[in-house]
C-alpha cells in the first residue's frame, strides 16, 4: 500500500495528515516498555553519548578548515532547519505549513531577530520517512542548525525526531498530530499543536458541552453512533472516542467501521437509522464523507448532529461536492480556521493580512496559522535561553506559560515533561451557509451553533 497513489490521495485529502501517522504509531508504541527499562535507558544514554561524540568530531572536522574563513556575519545569524514535505504528494499542505513558519521568521527578524541575531531558515525536503531521516541528518550534522521546525505529516515527524533526538538538537513540531510523537520519552522534542487524542476528546466532549444544551436534553439521553474508516487512522481516533464516551457515561449505541473505499454506505446509514442515533461521530477521509452525506439524505436519516474531524470535513471541496445546503450544520473539529473570533485568537487577523501581502492569496488551510503560532512560542523560548544548548532551551520551553486565548490560534502553551503542549484545545466549527465558522467555545465563536444537519 505504501507509496501507492491511493495513499497519496488520501494523505493529501486529509488536512491533518493523519493517515500516515498511525501506521507508524502502531510500530512505535510497542518499543516503549523496552526503552523505559533500566537497561534500555542505559543503552539509550550510551547511544546518545556516542552519537554526540561522533557529531562533535564531525563538526570539528568540517569546521576546522573553514574556521579562518568564517565571515563576521555568520555570528549575527542563527540557523534553523525547516523540515517539511516540499515535493511529492504531501507538498501542498507541507508548503502551506512552511508559510506559517516563514511569516513568523520574517516578523521576528523585522523586530530584531533572536537577541540581535537574524534567523536563517534552511529547508529540508522530507518526501517520505526515509528522506525525512536523511534530511534531518543533513540539517543536524552538515548545516549544524540550532533547532529544527516541522513537519506537517506524522510519519515524517516520527522518523525525523529520532535523528534530532540522537543528535541532541531541539525539534519543534508545529503540525503533526500523532500522539506517540511526544510519548516516547524524548528530551528535545516539543509540540505546540493538538494531538489525535485531543481531537477525539473534543469531539466527544462537545456532546455534553455544546450539543445537548442546544437541544435542551441531558447528554445521557442522546443516542450516539461512532463510525470510522477502518484503517489505523479511523481505529486510533475511534478508540479514543469510545474510551472518552465511556468516561463521560454517554450512551454509544453503534460503533461501526467501514472501508474508506466503500462505494455504498447505505448499510451503515440504515444501521444508524434503525438504532435511532441522535449524534454521529465520524472519522473519515474525503470521499467517504461526501458519500455519507449524500446517502444520508437519500435514505432519509436525520440525526440531530454530525461531528467529524480534519480534512474530510474541513476542505471546501467536500462542502462543494456535498452541496452547501446538505453540509449545513455539520460540525467539525480541526486546527483553528480563519472564521474565529479575534478576541479569543489575538493576532489571527494580522496573520491573514501578512499572509495575503506575502503570497497574494488567502491562506489555503489552518496549517499555516498553527505553524506560525508554534514558531512564535518557540522563538520566545529560544530567546530566553542564555545559549543555544539543548538543555537550556528545554528548560526555557518548560517554563513557557501562556494562558488559553493568548495566541493567534487561540491556544495557550504549557508543556508537559514529554514536550507536549497541554493547552492546545481544538475548537468546534460548523458549516453554515457554505462557510466553516467557529461555534464553540463561546468566546472563540463567531456564530451561534445550529442544530440539525442539512435540509432534513
Amino acid at each position: 500500500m505504501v507509496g501507492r497513489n491511493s495513499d497519496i490521495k488520501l494523505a493529501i485529502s486529509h488536512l491533518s495528515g493523519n493517515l500516515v501517522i498511525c501506521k507508524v504509531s502502531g510500530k512505535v508504541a510497542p518499543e516503549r516498555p523496552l526503552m523505559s527499562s533500566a537497561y534500555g535507558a542505559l543503552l539509550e544514554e550510551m547511544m546518545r553519548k556516542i552519537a554526540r561524540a561522533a557529531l562533535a568530531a564531525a563538526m570539528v572536522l568540517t569546521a576546522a578548515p573553514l574556521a579562518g574563513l568564517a565571515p563576521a556575519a555568520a555570528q549575527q545569524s542563527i540557523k534553523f532547519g525547516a523540515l517539511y514535505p516540499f515535493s511529492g504528494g504531501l507538498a501542498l499542505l507541507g508548503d502551506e505549513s512552511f508559510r506559517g513558519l516563514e511569516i513568523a521568521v520574517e516578523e521576528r527578524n523585522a523586530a530584531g531577530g533572536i537577541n540581535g541575531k537574524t534567523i536563517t531558515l534552511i529547508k529540508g525536503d522530507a518526501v517520505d520517512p526515509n528522506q525525512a531521516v536523511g534530511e534531518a541528518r543533513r540539517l543536524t550534522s552538515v548545516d549544524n542548525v540550532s533547532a529544527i521546525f516541522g513537519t506537517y505529516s506524522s510519519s515524517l515527524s516520527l522518523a525525523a525526531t529520532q535523528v534530532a533526538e540522537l543528535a541532541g538538537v531541539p525539534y519543534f513540531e508545529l503540525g503533526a498530530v500523532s500522539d506517540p510523537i511526544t510519548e516516547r520519552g524524548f528530551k528535545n522534542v516539543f509540540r505546540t499543536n493538538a494531538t489525535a487524542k485531543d481531537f477525539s476528546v473534543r469531539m466527544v466532549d462537545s456532546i455534553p458541552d455544546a450539543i445537548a444544551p442546544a437541544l435542551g436534553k441531558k447528554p445521557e439521553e442522546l443516542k450516539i453512533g461512532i463510525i470510522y474508516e477502518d484503517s489505523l487512522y479511523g481505529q486510533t481516533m475511534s478508540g479514543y472516542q469510545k474510551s472518552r464516551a465511556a468516561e463521560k457515561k454517554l450512551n454509544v449505541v453503534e460503533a461501526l467501521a467501514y472501508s474508506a473505499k466503500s462505494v455504498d454506505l447505505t448499510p451503515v446509514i440504515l444501521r444508524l437509522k434503525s438504532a435511532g442515533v441522535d449524534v454521529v461521530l465520524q472519522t473519515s477521509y474525503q470521499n467517504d464523507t461526501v458519500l455519507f452525506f449524500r446517502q444520508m439524505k437519500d435514505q432519509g436519516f436525520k440525526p440531530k448532529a454530525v461531528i467529524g474531524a480534519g480534512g474530510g470535513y474541513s476542505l471546501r471541496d467536500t462542502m462543494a461536492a456535498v452541496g452547501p445546503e446538505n453540509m449545513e450544520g455539520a460540525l467539525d473539529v480541526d486546527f483553528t480556521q480563519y472564521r474565529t473570533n479575534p478576541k479569543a485568537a489575538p493576532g489571527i487577523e494580522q496573520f491573514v493580512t501578512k499572509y495575503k501581502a506575502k503570497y497574494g492569496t488567502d491562506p489555503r488551510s489552518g496549517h499555516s496559522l498553527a505553524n506560525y503560532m508554534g514558531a512564535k512560542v518557540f522563538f520566545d523560548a529560544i530567546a530566553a535561553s542564555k545559549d543555544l544548548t539543548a538543555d537550556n532551551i528545554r528548560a526555557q520551553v518548560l517554563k513557557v506559560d501562556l494562558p488559553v486565548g493568548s495566541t493567534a490560534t487561540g491556544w495557550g502553551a504549557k508543556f508537559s515533561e514529554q514536550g507536549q503542549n497541554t493547552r492546545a484545545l481544538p475548537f468546534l466549527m460548523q458549516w453554515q451557509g457554505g462557510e466553516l465558522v467557529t461555534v464553540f467555545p463561546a468566546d472563540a465563536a463567531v456564530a451561534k451553533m445550529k442544530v440539525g444537519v442539512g435540509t432534513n
Partner: protein
Amino acid sequence: MDVFIQLLINGILLGSMYAIISVGLTLIFGIVRVVNFAHGEFLMVGMYGAYLLAAKFGLHPYVSAIPIVLLLFAFGALVQRFIIQPLLSAEEHIQIFATVGLSTALMNLALMIFGADLYSVPPSVVQHSINIGGFTLVIGQIVMFVCALALVAGLHLFMQSTPLGRAIRATAQNRNAALLMGVRVDRIYVIAFGLGAACVGLASALVMPLYPVTPTIGTYFVLTAFVVVVLGGMRSMYGAFFGAMIIGIVDSLSGYYIAPDLKEVVYFVIFILILIFKPTGLFGLGRGTE
C-alpha cells in the same frame, strides 16, 4: 421487514452499477482474452471527461454520455492496437503487466493534470431520491438499472443478429478457426476492446452524477468488477449481470446484518466457494471454456 426490503432495493440498485461497469470487462476478457487491469482507470478517464464537459460546456453527464462513449471506444481501440496487439502472442503475464502499467500510468497522469482534489458535476435531479410505498430509490440508480438492462439486451441483439457480431462470436469461440474463415481477427480484437471501453464509458457518464471523481476512483470499483466477471462465468454478459446483482445484494445485506467492514469478507468467501465448486462461474459454459 421494512429495512430488509429497503436493503434489497439498495442492493439491486448497487448491483446495477456493478453490472454496467462489469459488462465491458467481460466483453474484453471474453473476446480478446486479456484481463484488463486498467478497466477502473478507463472509468476514471470517462468520469473526468464527463466532468470537463459539464464544467466547460454545461452538459449534463447523461448528455455527454454520447461523446464519452465514442471517445472511450477510440481510446480502447488505440490501447488494443498499440499496446495489447504487439503482445498478443506473448505470454499472458506480459499482457497483464502491460495493463497494470497502463493503469498506473493513467492514474498518475490524472494526478498530474487534475491533482488529488475531487471534482463533481453540479447537482441535478438525478441525485434526488423518490419515495415509493415508504421505500427510497435514488433516481440516478434507477436510470443505471434500466441502462444496464438495455445495454445487455442491446449487446445480445448486436452479437446475435449482425454480421460483425457473428464475426466477434466466432473469434471468441476459436481464434484460428475464425481466421481460416476469413475473419480479420486483429480488427475484431480492436473493435471488441473498443466496445468494452465504450461500455465503461457509458458507465462513467451514469456514475458521474452520484460519485465525485478522483484519480483513484477506478480502484474503488474495479476489484468488485473482477469478482462479478468471475462469478458470472468470465465471458457471459448475462452472467456478469446476474453476478453483479448477487454481489450488490450480498453487499447490502451483509453490511447491515453482519458489519459494514466485513461485507467484502462475505462476498470474497462466496467468490472463493464458487471458484472451488464451480470454477467456470455461475453461468460458465463448462470446463475448458474459461
